[in-house]
């Protein structure tokens, strides 16, 4: 998505997410008719929003199996053991 397009979408999306679902249609109907892409993208963003709370658990929870595997953390750590970063002891 181009930055200018997002900046055009953003205030509409903020309004749409701030109202009850039933009130969205009137906002969507108020969109500039010539800007078909604006409506298509807003509807796609609303679908993603409504689909659920995916990502709300955060990266660490998603990565828990990675951290849980342990050995990779140790290996990544091992790559840095004994190194000096600037004036800091690690």
């Amino acid at each position, binding site marked *: 998505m181009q930055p200018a397009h997002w900046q055009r979408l*953003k205030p509409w999306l903020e309004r749409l997410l701030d109202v009850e679902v039933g009130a969205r249609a009137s906002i969507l109907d108020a969109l500039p008719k010539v800007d078909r892409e604006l409506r298509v993208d807003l509807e796609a963003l609303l679908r993603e929003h409504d*689909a659920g709370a995916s990502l709300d658990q*955060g*990266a660490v929870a998603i*990565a828990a199996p990675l951290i849980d595997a342990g050995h990779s953390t140790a290996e990544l*750590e091992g790559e*840095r053991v004994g190194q000096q*970063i600037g004036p*800091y002891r690690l």
Partner: protein
Amino acid sequence: MTERPPLTHLLDALRGGDRGAQSQLFALVYDELKRIARGHLRRGRQGLTVNPSTLVHEAFLKFHNAGSGNLQNSAHFYNVMAQAMRQVLLDLARHHAAERHGGALVRTELGDEIPDDLSLDTLLEVDDALTKLAACDADLAQLVEWHFFGGLQFTEIAALRGQNERTVRRHWDMARAFLLKAMHGADAGA
């Protein structure tokens, strides 16, 4: 020998745009996060919960107690912490992906459960989508780094930004919709 400068000096240097200070602080935080993650693992595999907010706060307390007096409410500190978290987690994801593709994944006593592809893919996809978001909206991208990668709560972010929590939550909803749309390949506006 050069004495270790207090982190407050590093933060001052960061504010002055000192890139060397940024890489020093980043490396320190990066290492601290990995140490804390290992500590969580040592404390018990049963019911493992790693609260990202706890990681950030443990690191904060450590730095704070080390004599860094004015770290509190420092957006710089949280930026660095969240970026370090993002880097550590992506390093882990890429490391596992390389092992999986290279067939070199070896089970260890801690590693009986090999992470599924979903975790790997999700992290890498979010990172890619976040880079796209950053190109469009730096504020929302920072919110995602703080909340999703850094684990900062909405109330903390609201305090740091001088916004109310409701606004931060709505901005998170917007950012999340952007990320999911980008991840699902529905980025028709490109």
